[in-house]
């Protein structure tokens, strides 16, 4: 579904990604772990071109999205993204946060968009908040809304950029629960996270990144149970 070849990204002289190859299959849940500054967020943000890669190719559903003439807005419709800091639109109600993209981008009519939005709010357990403004919500609620907002576009893949890192500990659970539900429904997901237990539980494949490279990857059992690379072992010994 997503095929990445030789992906590089530098900021000036600082090379953050030094050449990444990765294939993600339909329905797969890929969890990327690694120390801070290892380039995992940058990699994720390259997938929908929020960061412009310096070199390399990315194919999404057999389309070369890194091509010069490619209409990235069209691709982003099919790739939902959830941010560490939620980035809800503060001047819109919860319902409007969910419906603005379907209405403005997909030209969906308001009733249809509202219907989808209300169903999603129900799914994330916040049906009663549709008229609230983001500033009236807790962090966990905000992130569940942000997930619902991305889902409202009915994407083919969901990208999660440290979705629980900015949350108070007691709110992490409710967000992970929503994500777990999503994984069980067969959504293709790429997740950057520090929640190792969660990674082990929902991940089909764990990728350990360090210094802009993929150091090791495999099933959760293999990466967590028997890491082969010393840097993986070192990292896991510190976080587990």
């Amino acid at each position: 579904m997503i095929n990445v070849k030789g992906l590089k990204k530098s900021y000036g002289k600082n090379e953050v990604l030094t050449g990444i190859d990765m294939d993600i299959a339909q329905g797969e849940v890929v969890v990327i772990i690694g120390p801070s500054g290892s380039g995992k967020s940058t990699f994720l943000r390259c997938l929908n071109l929020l960061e412009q890669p310096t070199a390399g190719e990315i194919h999404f559903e057999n389309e070369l999205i890194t091509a010069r003439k490619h209409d990235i807005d069209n691709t982003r419709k099919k790739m939902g993204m959830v941010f560490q800091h939620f980035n809800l639109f503060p001047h819109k109600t919860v319902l409007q946060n969910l419906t603005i993209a379907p209405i403005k981008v997909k030209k969906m009519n308001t009733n249809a968009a509202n219907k989808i939005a209300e169903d999603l709010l129900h799914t994330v357990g916040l049906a009663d908040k549709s008229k609230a403004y983001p500033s009236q919500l807790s962090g966990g609620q905000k992130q569940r809304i942000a997930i619902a907002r991305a889902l409202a576009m009915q994407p083919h893949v969901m990208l999660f950029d440290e979705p629980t890192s900015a949350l108070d500990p007691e709110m992490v659970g409710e967000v992970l629960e929503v994500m777990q539900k999503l994984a069980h429904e067969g959504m293709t997901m790429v997740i950057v996270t520090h929640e190792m237990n969660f990674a082990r539980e929902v991940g089909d494949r764990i990728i350990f990144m360090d210094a802009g490279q993929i150091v090791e990857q495999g099933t959760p059992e293999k990466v967590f149970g028997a890491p082969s690379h010393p840097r993986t072992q070192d990292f896991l010994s510190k976080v587990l």
Partner: protein
Amino acid sequence: MKVCKSLFALCFSVLIVFLVVAPMASAAQDTGKKIVVGLSADFAPYEFRKNINGKDEIVGSDIEIAKRVAADMGAELQIQDIAFDSLLPALDSGRIDMIISGMTPTDERRQNVDFSDTYYISRQVIVTRAEDTTKFKTMESLKGAAIGVQRGSIQQDIAKGIEGAKLSPVDKVSDIMLQLESNRVDAAVMEGPVADGQVLNHPDLAITDIQIPDSDTPMAIAVQKGNTELLGQINKTLATLKANNEVDKFVNDAFKLNSGESTGETAEQIKDKPKPNIFQIFWDYRNYYWQGIQYTLFLSAMGVLFGFIIGLIVSLLRLSQISVFRWLAMTYIEILRGTPMLVQLLIIHYGIAQAFNINFTVLESGIITLSINSSAYLAEIFRAGIQGVDRGQTEAARSLGMSYGATMRHIIIPQAIKSVLPAIGNEFVVIIKESSIVSFIGVADLMFQAQAVRSITYSALSPLIIAAAIYFVMTFILSKLLGIVERRLSASDQR
């Protein structure tokens, strides 16, 4: 979106109210032959404003002459009241057909315009404070004195000839009176009949016995250079008037009308009449002020509305990825912020007329100037607002597939506007005050009306204080209203 909508709703409702209320100057454009006379209506008895049967009218001997000229030509007469030193540019740019404003044909003026035959010769006098008349008896005694004159006038040239004189040129005759009364100048050079009228209404001032040598100043009508056809017609009319001694009669009648003698009062009675206090002036001339308020609010509302739209566009260009756009926007902003609004106003009103033959009405010129001037300030305000919106907002919107334009329109700009609303409101308040400069080209705004009341009442200060109070009330109410709107808008920020 909601912010945008309610803001525009606010702007438009303000606009509509004033569109209905404001007496548009550009109304009723008739098709018949028309001749436009420019004059500075603060020069009694030649031209001045007078409240006649509750209506503000421009009257005086020059107006009578203008009426004759127009009648002989079979044209409809239209009068434009313009500051004296803006008359020549107005004629030059073709906004007016002729100047009849007690203007003396000097060589300097002849370089730019053509003059008719002389229609009246007036004398010049020196006015001073009543107690100083003994001090100033000869021209020599004026050496080194501070002297008030009307800017760009023949009196200014006379005063320049006085050795060591410190000139203090001002726009309005009432300003000269104010300068005298406040001891800022020692004496003033004035047209004889003008001085007569002023002194009659200012008992603390008097005309000295000084004889100014070679001070007989002829008055003539100015037309655009080379307009011999019009000049011929004017000279024909003037010849008839002079043959019948009618000009002298016009001046006498006008002097009486101005001094109140035509109402049967003697000069003594006028001198003894108690001066109206500020409240009485306000009440008597409330119609003037009310009209001025309408124009001022209309101008400001239009200025802010267009300034808002233009400013938003300029700020987007300023933030554009394309360097040509960025450069253009920056130049636009810097030039407009770096030059005085009065200069911009004069360039738009006279310069554009001369260079491109586009004649905006005074109201249009006023609105254009206020709009582009405030757009430069608003552009920078918007830029700060847009840049102040968290980057994550753009990323979130773009990641949902929204285009750059849609992201700006639906996500960034509404938040930016909300955050800069206090600054925008501030700009509105500033515009209300600064709009007063349009009186310079003759827009009948509050400042203009205050000037008119000054020259009618001979009260130099009170009409200005009334105007100041009105400006204050308007801006104060506006800031309060904006405060309410702001609080409404911030409802979504409540925790």
